[in-house]
């Protein structure tokens, strides 16, 4: 009886393997399902950001840089190639201005080309003048 049970289980496993869905995804042809809390590229809510620099201070990978001229005139730059996608900046921000998006970060051979200027108060000041 035990023998038959084992063989039946084997047969079931075989049928499941042949008819079931594949475990792998043919990316990028098929869209990748990312988990809910996936930490992808970061985005900034410019309205909320006050340029306090806490995110820059806590970033372990030096992925963010803040050039500050005065309290309201500053430039925040994001370097995706350096980013460790650890979520430390999101956690450090008291105003919830910085968040991880649920999107795969892009890949490139030229890290300089994907640098993102998250907020540039300096430029805004210049254009106002």
């Amino acid at each position, binding site marked *: 009886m035990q023998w038959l049970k084992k063989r039946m289980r084997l047969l079931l496993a075989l049928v499941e393997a042949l008819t079931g869905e594949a475990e792998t995804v043919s990316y990028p042809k098929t869209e990748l399902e990312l988990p809910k809390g996936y930490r992808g590229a970061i985005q900034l809510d410019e309205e909320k950001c006050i340029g306090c620099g806490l995110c820059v201070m*806590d970033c372990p990978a030096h992925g963010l840089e803040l050039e500050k001229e005065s309290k309201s005139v500053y430039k925040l730059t994001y370097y995706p190639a350096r980013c460790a996608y*650890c979520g430390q900046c999101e956690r450090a921000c008291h105003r919830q201005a910085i968040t991880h998006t649920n999107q795969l970060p892009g890949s490139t051979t030229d890290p300089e080309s994907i640098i993102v200027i998250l907020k540039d108060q300096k430029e805004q000041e210049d254009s106002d003048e």
Partner: protein
Amino acid sequence: MDKMNIPIGPQHPLLKEPLRLNIEISGERVLGGILRLGYVHRGIEKLAQTRNYNQNVSLTERVCGICSHVHTTTFCRAVEALLGLELPERVHYIRALMCEMERIHSHLLWLGILAKHIGLEMVFMHTWHDRESILDVMEEMSGGRVAHAVNQIGGVRFDLDEDHGPMVDSTVKKLKVDYEELLDVIEHDTTLKARTQGVAPLSTDDMKRYCVVGPVARASGVDVDMRRDDPMPPYDKLDFQVITHPDGDAWSRTYVRLQEIRQSLHLCKQIIDDIPEGPISVRAPRKVPAGEVVMRSEAPRGELFYYLRSDGSDYPARLKIRTPTLPALGILPEQLSEIHIADIPVVLAGIDLCIACADR
């Protein structure tokens, strides 16, 4: 018969991580081995002194790719002890849940590697398939497959929502069924027993002399487990057994780890059933007062030890990490004497080396 030296590593198909072994052989007998470490030394302890406490949470996560969560848990607990923070109960439960899931996937990974070295490819495929389901749950909960980034000083970053509980529950149930099937195969497989029983046995005294910890020590009859001996909450409230075996050979190490998977599955179920409601973090002050603290946790490979000294500045004055693999490497030359060449993979896989942890 003439003696001969065979170099193994640092890059070798037998090794998953870089390690150099110079093995002396005579015919088919291995006479001894000389070990060389440091190929993946990244200077993490020194690096930690140049970063603030929040940055160090991410840094300690990168000590190891398999037990990343327990490293951050121990580090955060050390900082929280210096800050004198009282954490909500829910935080401890979420941390423990991740620790147990990490233990399951680490042991399954190890079992797969051992089976592959012995030649049981089918067991390797099954264990890694089961491991994948645990990793999927961890990824779904935390957002990361390897670097989970669960911990922060003062709590955890994510909360379990209404989907997570049933997801863990169903995965544990499914794994229990798969696990019993696997156990049945392993316990009755003559090849596995023939390849592991009586291979490189080490006595309880040897283990104590070399200060070996974790499943390797427990397989030689040393009854030590930080979850019971120095419990972090909520382990003091949970019901589990510390598995030991008296023989100390490669088979007893397999037995101990297999039984530990069962205990961890049982613990996951208990945590999900008992998890209390409440907040998941408290606001931690940025300034850490001067002082020193020692924190210990039970990582999948044994006792993980963190020593942290603060001088009141933004950066730690000293961070010392003692990982469980380091003492286990100490007994490796002793194990590599008077065995057959064919037993080298079993000995190496049996102690579950994590070179990245040991080198830091």
